[in-house]
């Protein structure tokens, strides 16, 4: 089984590390702990077709106003998952901007967008118009909660299926 490199990209504190932790280890830490550099983990995903794909997940330190994303970590990625925090509208803007710059580097490879922290949906700052604007781009958009796990498997599995489909 061939492993495929998938990068997780987004603003700091949107929950990239928590998503990986939920997906790979079925755990969730309440305390926010920033990522420096990149954390690498793997997980095999079974697809509806019966195939399996091994994802090598590169959880890259998030972007902040003081530190851009280190794009050298993106090299040779087969796909990527953009992560935004539903309670912070600016993280969605960031995800949209990041997608453009990642595409410039990697070309058109499979990717998805997840709006994380779905367990806090009553506090989301994303109105219908903003979400509709993302839909209009034709992106695959998922809602995830690293806290309770909702949508997490699906988001990674869908990206895995896209990766299999592309190769």
């Amino acid at each position, binding site marked *: 089984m061939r492993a495929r490199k998938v990068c997780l990209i987004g603003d700091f504190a949107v929950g990239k590390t928590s998503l990986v932790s939920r997906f790979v280890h079925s755990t969730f830490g309440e305390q926010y702990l*920033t990522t*420096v*550099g990149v*954390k*690498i983990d*793997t997980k095999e995903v079974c697809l509806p077709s019966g195939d399996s794909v091994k994802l*090598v997940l590169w959880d890259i330190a998030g972007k902040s106003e003081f530190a851009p994303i*280190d794009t050298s970590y993106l*090299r040779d990625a087969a796909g990527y998952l953009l992560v935004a925090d539903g309670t912070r509208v600016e993280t969605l803007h960031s995800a949209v901007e990041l997608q453009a710059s990642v595409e410039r580097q990697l070309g058109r490879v499979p990717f998805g967008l997840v709006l994380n922290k779905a367990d806090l949906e009553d506090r989301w700052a994303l109105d219908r118009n903003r979400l509709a604007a993302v839909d209009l781009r034709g992106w695959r958009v998922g809602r995830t909660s690293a806290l309770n796990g909702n949508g997490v498997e699906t988001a990674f599995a869908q990206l895995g299926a896209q990766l299999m489909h592309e190769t």
Partner: protein
Amino acid sequence: MSGGLQSLRQHINRILTRQTRPLYLVVDDTLRLVEWRGDGSHYGLESLQAGAPLDERLAPILPIDEQETRAHAWRFVQLAGAPPCHVHVIRLDGGWGVAMLDAGAEHAAQLAQQQSTHELLLLRREREALIAELEQANRLKSRFIAGMSHEFRTPLTSIIGYSDQLREIRPDDRETQHHLNAVGRGARYLLNLVENLLDQARSEIGPLQLHPGACELAEISTEVEQLLRPVAGQRQLSLAWWFASDIPARLWLDAIRLKQVLINLVGNAIKFTEQGGVNVEFDWQDGRLQVAVADTGPGIDEADAAVIFEPFRQTAGHNQAKGAGLGLTISQALVQAMGGEVRLNTRKGEGSRFEFSIDAPAVRGGRGGEGGSLADKKIVIADDDPDLLELFRLWLSSAGCRVETARDAASTLEIARRVRPDAVILDLDLGGDDGAAVAAELGAGERHCKIVILSAAPNDPANERQLPDVIDARWTKPISRTELLRGLAALIADTG
């Protein structure tokens, strides 16, 4: 000393090796391990074996393109259960060389700094979101207060207007006059309170609006005196008005706002003075009106004086303190809007003196058409409140006007077409109809009448409404009989 440099290099290499615990890996082009040196388990790479495939987590650090010859370095790479390390990759003949160097100490330092930076950023964003939420709630509250204050104006117009009307009907009945005076004073006190609340709400939404015009200072002071003299009388206080001799007869200022400031300052002075009295002094110089309100009250201590213009403050130690605590705040805001600043001179036990000066250029010339007759003038007045409609009809009829009344848009337009009036006075809210739309229709085509808006909704950001430019005058309720007739006369009277 021969070999000294070499010894030094060896020493440093030993230190660096101890600190960074390098692991060297050589893999072939199929990513199978050829050889290695160092402790693989330190980096989470257990049981390294020649010929075995490279750990799949590390595999992506090697370029897919075998022609890639550039050396590459990855900083702070962290595999599960291993310390963060820096990874260096070079191209070898038929394979790759990979070096892993422990970067735990460097990572820990950067992590601590980045963690505190991110936590601060998150706190700042939370605070900004909270502030935005509070500001929104405050705007809603201000709009609510503005809306409620507006609702107060219509019934207050009725109370003040009808008590004035009754006083005129029974001028010789002293007991009735006394009772009606009390009703009028109470209503005007309430009106001032409402005005203050409304202005406080307005000032939180946007700057206070002024509507300056030509007015007589004597009239303003007389109205304030009529309102407050009975209150001073009840407390056996003197209330004296002093005018410098060179104040022009007519000044250009917002009379309603100046009256509001005077009612607040003089009313406060009376409220807090136990014996003696209150002096109000006016002077005028270089286009500015100077006003002082001085009392023989208990004075204000330094701590209270420092915060006295802040909203909802009541000075400590006054058992008779009452009201909303907005009078001085609003007065300061109004005086500032009029180009001045209220200043307080006071000492505990020695009375208080509030002083301010405002822009008030002299107005040359007479009153124009104000003295003319309204006899036989045809007036249409439209208001959805039947009590107010009747009151305005009484006032206008008493001046000799021929009055027609209407309560909605259709009948207003029908009457206006039929009688061809000299003036149409419109409320903005005509039941479910829009008075501004009626004004626009009346003003379209050939104009034969003056159009006046008389509304309880003041022209402020909380009640923004685009009015058509056909309107000749805009007045705000409550309005007195004198104000109504004088305003109308200025628009349409025969001056002979």
